[in-house]
């Protein structure tokens, strides 16, 4: 609770508060510096990096990871974690496309696919709160089970399809902007709004900051937890549908390892693993850093093996610089 209080005190005394944009830039400067320096570096070393088509290309590539990471942020904020997002992504994907193959129209199939994601998330939350089992273990079991479920549903085979609405979601444009980017931005605005402007959002921060204090102040922690994991599952399901739409194919192996990419984006974005501190905007910058690295190193024709080494180094350095900044301020 002390942490929460001091955080509030600090905010009140902060004259920046009147200028949300400026306040935001200052409080996230560590990661922003990392992002800007990466962009400058790639702009100087490759001729194509800053072209409009490549910028849209990078944003479209990060949309899947960013959407998953927004959901992951909620779970890490309340001191939990969701390892099952990659598998939930696959289940939503194969159920949506499977229904499509069975002759169900695309809109209901999409809705069922998203609901399945939310329901699997809700099951995570339910078992965590009612069974008093650590989130790491519950979502690890769900990760294994849901992956098995995806294999069972497909018999292990990828399913290719042709559908106009889906190809619009995956590869279409509204004006000059690709649809996956728009979906990502909408998710960014909604999740940001939930965390900053609603009672539920404040409760999420309170539970993550100090669980006991939150319980004594009358917050129903089990409700908050279930909702948080449901949001994470729903967003994983949404990203699954977008990924299938982009590839015109649903695959039971889809999304393997995505949970780690999402966690990397969340941590890069300045979210604290001990809960209670973190912002969706920061997580978006984190996802951007990973995407810019992937794309820029590819444009420079760096081999994929070296890319892994560089990526790991950048993640740990960026978080280190950020923690130095925070120490200075404190």
């Amino acid at each position, binding site marked *: 609770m002390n942490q929460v209080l001091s955080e509030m005190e600090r905010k009140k005394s902060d004259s920046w508060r009147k200028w949300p944009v400026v306040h935001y830039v200052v409080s996230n400067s560590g990661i922003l510096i990392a992002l800007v320096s990466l962009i400058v570096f790639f702009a100087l070393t490759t001729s194509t990096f800053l072209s409009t088509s*490549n910028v849209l290309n990078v944003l479209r590539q990060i949309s899947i990871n960013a959407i998953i990471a927004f959901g992951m942020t909620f779970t890490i904020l309340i001191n939990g974690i969701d390892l099952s997002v990659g598998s939930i992504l696959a289940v939503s994907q194969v159920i949506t496309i499977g229904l499509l193959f069975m002759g169900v129209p695309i809109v209901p199939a999409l809705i069922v696919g998203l609901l399945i994601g939310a329901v699997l998330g809700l099951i995570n939350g339910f078992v965590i709160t009612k069974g008093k089992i650590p989130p790491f273990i519950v979502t690890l079991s769900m990760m294994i089970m849901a992956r098995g479920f995806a294999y069972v549903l*497909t018999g292990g085979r990828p399913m290719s399809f042709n559908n106009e609405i889906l190809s619009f979601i995956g*590869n279409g444009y509204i004006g000059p902007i690709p649809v996956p980017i728009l979906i990502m931005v909408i998710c960014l605005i909604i999740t940001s709004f939930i965390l900053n402007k609603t009672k539920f959002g404040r409760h999420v921060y309170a539970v993550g900051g100090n669980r006991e204090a939150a319980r004594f102040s009358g917050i129903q922690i089990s409700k908050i937890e279930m909702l948080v994991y449901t949001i994470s599952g729903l967003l994983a399901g949404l990203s699954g549908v977008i990924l299938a739409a982009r*590839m015109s194919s649903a695959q039971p192996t*889809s999304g393997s390892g995505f949970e780690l990419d999402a966690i990397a984006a969340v941590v890069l974005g300045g979210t604290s693993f001990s809960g209670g501190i973190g912002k969706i905007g920061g997580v978006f910058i984190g996802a951007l850093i990973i995407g810019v690295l992937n794309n820029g190193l*590819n*444009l420079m024709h760096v081999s994929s093996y070296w890319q892994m080494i560089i990526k790991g180094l950048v993640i740990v350095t960026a978080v280190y610089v950020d923690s130095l900044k925070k120490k200075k301020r404190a």
Partner: protein
Amino acid sequence: MKTSKKMKSASLILTLILIMVTMVACGSKTQETSTTSSSKETKKHTFAASYFTLNNPHFIDWSKGLKSEIVDKHGDKLIEVDAQLDINKQISDVEDFIQQKVDAIFIAPVDSKGIKTALLSAKKANIRVIIMDVPPQDTDLVTAMVTTDNFMAGKVLGDAMVKNTGGKANVAIIDWSVVQAVVDRTDGFTAAVKASPGIKVVARQDGKASTESALPIMENFLQSNPEINAVFTINDPSAVGALAAIEAAKRTDIKIYSIDGSQDAIKLVKDNKIAGTSAQFPVKMGQVAGDLVYKILNKENVEKWVKVESLFIDQSNYQQYLK
């Protein structure tokens, strides 16, 4: 009081799970007996197969071929396990087979080097191993190997590219160089295009042989090397990913050359979306491997490495292979 209630519900769930497991086990048992009762031979054999993945149609076809020989033709038993791309799981699966004292083990290794541990255990237990699809490093530890002629698959693809482009193309390669079989494919390709200096490889990246890895790689290639007009992908899932990127960018001038000959890819050939795919014949390979195991058990002399040939499927001949 509360805890006892919880204990009750927990034990109830456990019992339910146990009942489910026994039901499933009995179900599979009855299947086994029904297949064995139809045969006439006196001695029954049990074989086991470990595939490096069962989500690729290629290995599902391998399994079909094996089953048609072992189960349908001889009425013997075949245990099949999916290693899910995990070498550790594969090794422990093979060790389980050895404990069950099976008559021979078929393995499609996840990792040509790492499989050595499992091969040694099998040798110690005096159980014969037949390798499927991917030759291991330690070939002296195995009884026989059945693979596609991977070098040839790459070579017929390269020949087709030279012919279609008149020996002039800017090629992007989506590779997966950790697997020996894939290295053989790219070697075959290199050998085929060596005589045509007009064919230049302008970009190359590892795509982990999967659709979702190949897609962003191809997108980035299109940004960095817009002059690309031919793509060589080392398997069909990679080709599907590359095609998604090319179609999203509305580039109609780029032709994809792939390897596998899966039904999905042959359909793409039919719709003129890819140039072609070097076919492997996994069902046939499975049958060859199944046939081989009986020859080995009967102490006949067999070739150690059987290579099943490959051919390039394109506009001119796809009808014969489209199911």
